């Protein structure tokens, strides 16, 4: 709790800087308008005007908060203007992709740990693939799948799965290899079979790594879903909200969608963290 005050200070500083930047960045428009009307602008007029513009260069925090509030609470949940609706679309694709990616990553990790040939052939590629900007293929996957007649949730989920797959694979391989030689030798003295070693030693000891990679993976899945919603044609989801906002210059809409996405990411990571805490405590591994 000692760090609450510093965090609040930093957040307050960010808000203050933001307000200052909003005045600075939006003042050009105000001066242009005043010059056109042949008026002089006093400082207080300048400040009030920069806070209340319809399409500001940088919306002030309270404008974003208002946009967010209207998007979340001011609309019916089924409305096309509701951020809850768009967030829900993004959330469902993220979760579908995350589950797909996690299952695939875990299965492949189990294969890699138990099969030396697979380890030697797949692992270098899995690591190298992390250096590749995979997101670049998102628009192509969307178009190709659409031409095959697959639309809606699945293409986005595939991209999200692809992005969350590699962190989980790498983390799980590390986790399943976490038991040291002594523990493995102990199980050998018990004459434990391969599957017994897996269920009783490898899997439990991989749990901390598993949850660490799940947190990375779920954040990656959300980024993947949002980028997958960008290509033309997408009308639902937070990514589509960002894109339409940028087409029509609706800066407040962009910022509101951005904050909704940030909140969604925070909630997802926090939920995974809470599950981690509970599971590790039940397994007697809480630190």
């Amino acid at each position: 709790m000692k760090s609450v005050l510093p965090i609040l200070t930093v957040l307050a500083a960010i808000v203050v800087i933001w307000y200052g930047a909003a005045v600075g960045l939006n003042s050009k428009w105000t001066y242009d308008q005043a010059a056109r009307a042949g008026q002089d602008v006093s400082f207080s007029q300048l400040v009030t005007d920069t806070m209340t513009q319809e399409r500001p260069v940088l919306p002030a925090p309270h404008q974003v908060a208002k946009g967010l509030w209207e998007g979340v609470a001011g609309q019916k949940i089924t409305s096309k203007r509701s951020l809850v609706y768009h967030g829900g679309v993004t959330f469902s694709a993220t979760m579908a992709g995350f589950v797909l990616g996690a299952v695939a990553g875990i299965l492949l990790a189990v294969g890699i740990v138990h099969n030396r040939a697979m380890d030697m052939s797949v692992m270098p590629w899995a690591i190298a693939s992390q250096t590749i900007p995979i997101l670049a293929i998102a628009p192509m996957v969307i178009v190709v799948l659409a031409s095959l007649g697959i639309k809606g949730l699945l293409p986005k989920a595939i991209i999200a799965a692809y992005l969350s797959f590699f962190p989980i694979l790498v983390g799980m391989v590390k986790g399943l290899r976490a038991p040291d030689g002594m523990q493995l030798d102990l199980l050998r003295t018990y004459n434990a079979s391969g599957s017994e070693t897996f269920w009783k030693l490898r899997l439990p000891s991989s749990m901390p790594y598993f949850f660490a990679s799940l947190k990375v993976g779920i954040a990656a899945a959300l980024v993947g879903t949002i980028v997958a919603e960008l290509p033309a044609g997408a009308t639902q989801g937070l990514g589509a909200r960002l894109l339409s906002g940028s087409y029509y210059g609706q800066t407040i809409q962009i910022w509101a969608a951005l904050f909704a996405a940030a909140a969604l990411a925070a909630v997802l990571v926090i939920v995974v963290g809470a599950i981690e805490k509970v599971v590790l405590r039940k397994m007697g591994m809480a630190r």
Partner: protein
Amino acid sequence: MSALIIAIVFWVAATALNGWIARTRPNARWAKLFVPALFGATLLILWEGLVRGLNVSPVILPAPSAIAARFAESTDVLWGDFAQTILKGALAGYVIGCGAAVLVAIAIDRSPFLKRGLLPVGNFVAALPIVGIAPILVMWFGFDWQSKAAVVVMMVFFPVLVNMVAGLAATDRLQRDLMATYSASYSQTLAKLRLPAAMPFLFNGLKIATTLALIGAIVAEFFGSPTRGMGFRISTAVGQLDMPLVWSEIAVAALAGSGFFGLMALIEKAVTFWHPSQRRR
């Protein structure tokens, strides 16, 4: 069909060969290169065989040979896109973002109060979908590479900051006490002890940031760009269903990504030669 059968036969044979090598010579140096190389080649041949054998439309999945041919004939377009996106956008943003993060880390390191406040915020921001800020920055900085560089700055800043702050805290008591007995000043301790000790952490962050920089530069082009650049080419070529060109761009992105990462790994090796993870085993 024969192409498909040949590919499957090759696949089975290569898998058997890899399995045999992994069983008999798991620790040979050449095996560590040969086995993954053979696996990669197998994937390519299987891909080629599937596309030819099943007559998959090139609109859905072009064969690797078609992609290679397209790559060879459009090298000047690809080079122009590479220069626009990677050399101008990603690299400029990477240098600015990482430099700023290192300077900020050194600045806040002197104040435990700021560190306690900024680190949780930085960790939180590092998990957010920062790519989403791209449309705003494109609006502010225009369509050219400056806006791409700004997106990259935003994306690489926090991971590098968090790692650098952790790195500056990596010296132990004994080492700092030793510097104190030498009556070393703050800047001397920083230059001779704490910056070198922070290097393994810094390079960890720098390596993560290479991929983020490329992602930021490419995705930012989806929101508006001049008529060149990798993100622009990918989205227009997808619209024209010119899939071999899209795959060529992806190949360029993959090469640039691994090259960039490899370069940072090489520099890391030269700078942190003393660290246990870099010593020869």
